[in-house]
């Protein structure tokens, strides 16, 4: 009996130290989350307006001189995948990869992974990777997102891929984060064909004035647009990661507390049993 008491005591100790770690991680995640959330919230209107504006332009665009606007037969797709740098964030990374796998099934594609987990995942699966330069999701700045946009544009113009989409995690609230896939290029793919039908609905397309001309405008705007969206998706993803980690660590701490409670119960029971046994032995000894 004394042996099992010691075992339980050790178990309690180990669970306690795990709980200490999960608690600390939760605190770190919540303080990082606050900052990340502010950044995501200040960036969100820009992100949404940017996407909406380009979608509006694409809906009424009649100029196809720029290679960015015209859809070509898709032979290869380039995905920008934003995941976390570290694990222990609940389903944050695996949910994103699950969604990406469902989307990319049977396609010929390449990726630009952002975040260490994304890099590791696609390296393991042998998917062609365009660059490993942006492996750390946490320190991507506006300047880096411009570099990514530049890279994307160059590859797209060179015909290395015919479609660009970005996979990231939407920060819905502190408790919910949903992975999402957003098409970036060509601009035609921004609108759902059915919705487009409804918007147009027999109405003539509005003519937009481009100054100096549509090609120059698109060539100037598209890199800007890509970097804006990459940065926005980054902010959302970083906030989501911290949110997911906080929830996961909160659950882990709660589980650990529950486990300690149960183990304490067992410990007391074992102690009681040991004492009872000792008394029985003494009584038995004096009786004989």
């Amino acid at each position: 009996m004394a042996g099992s008491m010691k075992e339980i005591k050790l178990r309690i100790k180990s669970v306690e130290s795990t709980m200490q770690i999960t608690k600390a991680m939760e605190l770190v995640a919540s303080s990082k989350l606050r900052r990340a959330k502010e950044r995501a919230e200040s960036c969100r209107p820009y992100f949404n307006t940017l996407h909406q504006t380009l979608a509006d332009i694409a809906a009424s665009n009649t100029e196809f001189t720029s290679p960015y606007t015209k859809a070509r037969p898709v032979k290869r797709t380039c995905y920008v995948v934003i995941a976390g740098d570290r694990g222990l964030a609940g389903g944050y990374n695996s949910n994103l990869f699950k969604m990406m796998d469902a989307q990319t099934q049977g396609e010929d594609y390449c990726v630009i992974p952002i975040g260490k987990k994304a890099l590791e995942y696609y390296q393991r699966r042998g998917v062609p990777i365009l660059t490993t330069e942006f492996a750390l999701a946490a320190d991507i700045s506006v300047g880096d997102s411009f570099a990514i946009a530049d890279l994307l544009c160059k590859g797209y113009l060179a015909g290395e891929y015919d479609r660009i989409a970005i996979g990231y995690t939407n920060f819905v609230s502190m408790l919910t984060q949903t992975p999402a896939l957003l098409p970036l290029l060509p601009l035609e793919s921004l609108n759902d064909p059915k919705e487009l039908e409804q918007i147009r609905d027999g109405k003539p397309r509005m003519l937009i004035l481009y100054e100096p001309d549509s090609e120059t405008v698109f060539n100037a705007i598209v890199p800007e647009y890509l970097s804006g969206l990459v940065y926005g998706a980054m902010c959302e993803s970083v906030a989501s990661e911290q949110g997911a980690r906080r929830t996961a660590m909160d659950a882990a701490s709660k589980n650990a507390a529950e486990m300690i409670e149960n183990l304490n119960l067992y410990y007391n029971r074992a102690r009681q049993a040991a004492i009872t046994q000792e008394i029985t032995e003494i009584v038995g000894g004096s009786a004989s």
Partner: protein
Amino acid sequence: MNTFHLTIQTVDGPAFEGEAQRLFCRTIDGDVAILAHHADYCTALGMGEARVTLEDGTVRKAACIGGMLTMLDNRCRLLATTWEWSEDIDPERAHAARDRAQALIEQGGLSNRELALASAKLQRALVRSSVAKK
């Protein structure tokens, strides 16, 4: 005077949202001024001073660098890489940044990439300090 709805957004958050009489800014093709009921229009922004005439006629100045401008259906959306209102710019810092960038270029010995970065920096600093001065 007629007004139009103007939204100015930057990566760091919204800079302006409301009615305006007139928007003046520098595009890649030169200066433009947008008034209410402008035809549907789309262009990319360059670096330069921007002026917004508000509903009550007051003029606000800002340093506007990069981005895009669209006017659709009397709603104007300006998405800037950076947009700083003149009152938010610290003139001393802007001047110091300009002098630093200038000194760096004059000193020479930079690689092409560094030179491009430095001249971009100088251009931004020039815009900023010229807006702050007035």
